[in-house]
Structure formats: C-alpha cells, structure tokens
C-alpha cells in the first residue's frame, strides 16, 4: 500500500510540476469551451446572429404588398432589405442573404380576388429563393411569410380599396352564378354585403388601426425545455463537458505515453526490481490518471460555474458518478496506449487522432442532437458520447440519478474492456 500511494503521489507531483502539461489540460479546454459555448449559447445568439437575412423584391407595389412588406420588416426574426430581383438572386447565391422574396406585379389584386373566390379561383404567386445550405431557415421564413400574408390580405379585404373592389366583383359574380344553391347564394351575398358595410365604416371613421378585420388568432409562446421553468439552455454546460472529455483524454495519452517511455529508462528497472506486483505498477498509474482527470473536470466546471453560471441542475451524485466513471475510462485508455504502442512517438500521434475521432463522434464539439438520425444511433457505441450525454443530463438537463445509470454502466464496462486488454498486452521487460 505504501508503494502504491508513493507511486500515485509521484505521478501526480510530476504532472503538476510540468507547467506546460497543466496549462494544456486546464487552460486550453477552458479557452476552447468558452469559445464553443459562446457560439452555441442560445441567449447569446439571439442578440445578433439569428436574424435571417431576407431580400425583398416588391414588383407589385400595391397596398397589399406594401402592407405585407411592412409586416415582414417589423418581424424580429427577420432582417429585411429591399432589392431588385436580379440583385437579390445574386446575393442569395453568394450567401450574402439567406432568402429572397418576390411579389410579382398584380400580386395584391390577385390575392384579394382569390380571398373569397373559392377553391377554383386563381391564387396569387409569391416567389421564394433560398440558399440550400440554410433550408431550415428558408422553411422558417416561409412560415412567417404565410402568417403575415394572411394578415395583410385580410386587412385589405376589410378596410382597403382593393378589398372593396374585390368584394364588389365577388358580389357581381355571385349574382350571375346559377350553379350554386339558392340558400347558399343568399347567405354568401349577405356575408359579402356585411364585409362591404364594415369596409365603409372603417373608411369613414378613419380609425384604420383599431380593428382591421381578422388577424392571426393566436400567438406562439416558445419555452426551451431544460431543467425547469426559467432555467435557460446553457451552451457552456455542454461545451465544458465536451472539451473536458477531450482534454482529459489528451492527458491520459500523455500518462500512457509516459509509461511507454519509462520502459526505456533505468527507472522502470528499479520499479520492477522492487517486490511489486504488476497490478500495483499499472494500477497506480491508472489511479493517478483518474485523479488528475477528476481534478481537471473540477477546475473546468468550477470555472464554468463562476464565469458562465453553469450549474449542476440535476443529480449531484449522478454528476460525480459520471465524472468518476469517465475518469476511470480515461485511465484505462492511457494504459491501453501504453500497452499497444510501439514507440512513444508513434503511440502519441496515433492516439491523438483516435481521440479526436472519438470526441467528435461523441458529440463533444457539436451536440449529438444536431447529428442526422443514423449517426446518432451509430455513435451510441462510442464511450465519449456516454460521458458527454451523462454530463449534459446532470447539468443543464437537470435529470436525476436514474438517467445516468446507463451512461455510468457503459463507461465502467468500457473501462473493464480497455483495462483488461491493457494488462494482458502490456510488455513488462525493459527495452
């Protein structure tokens, strides 16, 4: 036991004495996680980046299209600028604008006559040009456009000149219509007369702003579902988990490579000459790696808490459980590198590439929920994914202990596989 503690203490002391190693494993992840967190953090993003750039080519210039343009411009989700069609198309193609909207000439009147015109009336066209790399934003603009168009057209129907003309035309058409049942004809006529009457009233009173006819009868209230009402999604929680995982694996690589390099040195002979079991020699290395990993995680989440308000909203036991299980996994990963590597140099290069892959697929850079479905399923076998998901679950998702039982189990199982392989394949003799 004395030998074991002495070995662990030695490893930790030497790691801590290496300023560059400590900087690399604590400051680097803090810097990168802060950057990623800033980019992905929703509250930060809403301020500037998320307004969709829209170019508007109004070739109609009718009351309806002017009104619709004003509604779009006022929408907080859009950044609308007027432009000629050719200009707008070019801008979308260059990626300077996400969407271009065109109201062709005659849009307003066609829309008005189609309003009460029934299923077979000719509908007005709106052209929407979009950047295919931002298809989801284009869909969003389409939805917003539909709402505002409905509002603009109906407002014109109930209070504008175009509306009155359209109602008159519809009434004339209705009178000459013989295909329609007489009771329906009567009811429709009185409805249109009513609209005409309302239109007259709102014209003469001049209070166009007060009641403008039908509007969209609901407003959507969005709430991000996180640990509780009022607790926003914290992009920093995720980025700190991800970068922590990445840089802890880097640290584990250094520990593994260090062990590999030791076999070339006299020190390894002295350790082997003492009556120590292999379990003590490798186990102490694993324990010191795991302790350093916990230290790094603690530094990162402490920083994230103080600076970015990241909290463990869920089970603290769960968080610690995931942290410990992942730290053991990192330790086993380090041993595996030491036992499979040939030379320290080649082992380091190869395992850094492997780590970057593991970490990327594990969702440490971008959250796995942005992955396509098949990739989300495929990456379920990657241990780093369980670590990141487990840390996410207990921080911003605010979930309980039971939600991380599987991640913890899976991490520990992977630890046993890695560790077993490492001990079996480790070459004990000096070089």
């Amino acid at each position, binding site marked *: 036991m*004395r030998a074991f503690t002495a070995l662990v203490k030695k490893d930790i002391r030497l790691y801590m004495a290496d300023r560059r190693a400590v900087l690399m494993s604590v400051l680097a992840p803090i810097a990168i996680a802060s950057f990623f967190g800033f980019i992905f953090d929703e509250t930060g993003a809403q301020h500037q980046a998320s307004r969709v750039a829209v170019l508007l080519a109004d070739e109609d210039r009718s009351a309806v299209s002017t009104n619709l343009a004003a509604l779009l411009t006022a929408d907080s989700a859009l950044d609308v600028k007027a432009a000629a069609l050719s200009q707008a198309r070019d801008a979308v193609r260059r990626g300077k604008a996400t969407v271009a909207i065109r109201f062709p000439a005659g849009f307003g009147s066609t829309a008005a006559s189609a309003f009460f015109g029934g299923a077979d009336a000719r509908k007005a066209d709106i052209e929407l040009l979009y950047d295919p790399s931002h298809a989801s934003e284009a869909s969003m603009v389409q939805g917003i456009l539909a709402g505002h168009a409905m509002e603009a057209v109906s407002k014109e129907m109930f209070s504008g000149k175009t509306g009155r003309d359209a109602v008159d035309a519809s009434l004339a058409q209705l009178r000459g219509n013989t295909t329609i049942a007489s009771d329906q004809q009567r009811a429709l006529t009185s409805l249109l007369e009513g609209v005409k009457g309302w239109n007259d009233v709102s014209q003469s009173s001049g209070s166009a702003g007060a009641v403008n006819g039908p509007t969209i009868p609901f407003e959507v209230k969005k709430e991000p579902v996180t640990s509780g009402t009022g607790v926003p999604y914290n992009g920093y929680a995720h980025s700190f988990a991800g970068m922590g995982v990445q840089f802890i694996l880097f640290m584990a690589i250094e520990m593994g490579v260090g062990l590999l390099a030791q076999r070339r040195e006299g020190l390894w*002979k002295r350790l082997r000459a003492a009556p120590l079991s292999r379990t003590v020699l490798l186990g102490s290395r694993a324990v010191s790696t795991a302790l350093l990993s916990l230290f790094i995680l603690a530094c990162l989440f402490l920083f994230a808490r103080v600076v970015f308000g990241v909290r463990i909203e869920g089970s603290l036991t769960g968080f610690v459980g995931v942290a410990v299980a992942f730290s053991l996994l990192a330790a086993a990963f380090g041993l595996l590198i030491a036992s499979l590597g040939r030379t320290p140099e080649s082992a380091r290069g190869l395992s850094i590439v492997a780590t970057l892959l593991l970490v990327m697929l594990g969702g440490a850079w971008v959250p796995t929920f942005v992955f396509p479905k098949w990739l989300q399923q495929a990456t379920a076998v990657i241990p780093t994914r369980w670590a990141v998901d487990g840390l996410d679950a207990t921080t911003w998702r605010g979930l309980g202990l039971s939600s991380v039982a599987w991640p913890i189990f899976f991490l520990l199982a992977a630890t046993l596989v890695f560790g077993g392989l490492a001990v079996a394949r480790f070459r004990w*003799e000096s070089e």
Partner: protein
Amino acid sequence: MLELHDLTRRFGALTAVDHVTFGAAAGEMVGLLGPNGAGKTTTVAMIAGLLPPDSGEVRIGGRRLGGDTDPLKSRIGLVTQDLALIDGLSAAENLQFFAALYDLDRQASKRAVAEALDLTGLTERARDKVKTFSGGMKRRLNLAAALLHGPDILLLDEPTVGVDPQSRNAIFENLETLKRRGTTILYTTHYMEEAERLCDRIVILDHGRVIADDTAQGLSKLVPAQNLITVALENAPDALLADGLHALSGVQRVETAPGVVRVAVTDLASTMPAVLQWFTNRGLKYQHVSTERASLETVFLALTGRALRD
C-alpha cells in the same frame, strides 16, 4: 549467498546468456567482466528478477528466486546501468520514493535516507533537484537509491560509465565500506583495472558463456609470460646467471640486459621469495625490485584470441 545455476536466456536466435553458473559468498565482491554484448546486463536483469530465465535458476540464501512479488527481491539492491532517478524531485525525495517501494515506514525511511546520503556524501545536496546534479553526483545518488532497504546483495551494472575520476573513487570507497559491512557485491564492468582493483574474484563472460572464474592472481597464472619480476643489480650480471635462475621451479623465462634481469614466472607470490633468495645466496646485491602482473587484458587475449576492448 548468491548462486547462479545454468542460467540461460535467448533473444530469438541469439543466446545472450548461455548456461552461466557461478556464485558469490556472503561479503564477497565478485567482478563480472566482459566486452560489450557479452551478456552482463542480461545476467544482472535475471538476478534482479526483471527478466525470467529460459532455463536455470537464481538462488538467494539458498532459496530459488520466484516471481514479481517474491519477498526475496527485497534482499537485492540494483544499481542500474542507465540512471534510474527522477530528475524533477530532490535527492531526498527520490530516496524517500524508493524507500516506499520497499514498504519502509516513515521512521525507517528517514533513517535509511539519511544514512544513504551520508555514505555517498550527498547530505548537503539533499534538497536540491536531481536535474541540477553533475553526472558523478547522479551516479552516487543512483547507488544510494539501491541501499535504502538494506540489501544483502548489491548488483552494480557498469556504475562508473561516464563518471569523473573523483566520483569514481568516491564510489569505490563506498563499495569498500559496504563490503566491510558484509554486503555481497556483484560488480559488472568492462574495465579490467576496476575489477582487478576491487574484486575478490572475477568471472569473465564472453558471448554469454563463463570462460574464467578465479581470483586476479589465479587468472594471471593463465599467462605466465606476463608476470614479471624485474631486478636492478649493482654489477653487470654474467651470462651464467640466466641458466641458474631458469632452473628454479616456476620460472618460465629469463632475460638479461646491462644492470637488469627480468624473470617471467607462473605465480608471482610463490616464486618471488625463491628468486630473491637465489640472488642473496650468490652475494649479488640488488638495488631495486619491481613486479608486474599479467593484466586482465592479456588474460582475455590469451583466453579468446581477441582484445577485451573492441
């Protein structure tokens, strides 16, 4: 104390250590001498339990050395050929760490560290980081690190490679002190002067095989032409003198020169008194007598037909 029986180790097609058998009694200092690649380090590694032999065995105090955790390993101290120190720690911290590997408690560790520092003359530098040490000081600390658990057997693998003469002498003195205290020492080297100066017995290894195992004096008998007694006479020796000396038992050859006689003998110790007596009996006064023993270099050359240093 230490016995090797038919110890053999192969690396692929190469037999690095080939049925090596020798021993060292308690308190004896044995030199393991051989050119580079002779198998010295491999032999030491098997004694220290770092490398399992392919066949044969190592016995310590009569008991066969077993696996990694065999407590018998605590009776061995290993001074490695490459320095086995942690540069980032101080001398004292290094020693405390190595003491802990042998499960010494705080008290015992403190005592052992102080004693080892004292013996190797490093007490004043105890708190300094090893990376600030000179090569010679590191070698001395490397020796100290092997002594903490009070081993009965000390294995030294080329402990003086790249060491300044002063540190080298300091190490020799340390070893003599340890020997006086009863430590059995196996001293591996390819410098014959060291083996000759320090060791009670010398085992010569070549291509993994023991080709000689004797005291320095015993080995010198293998090349009698190189054991010389040189006598400076007051008067010029006459021609008959050579024949007379030649008749003595143990005398191999006699050369004369004006004022000097050189006598080559099988064994200096036993033949020298008879040679001097012969001069005295004839009333020949000698001014000065000197002896020269066959060097291990010439012994090795005689045994293998090759020079020891490559």
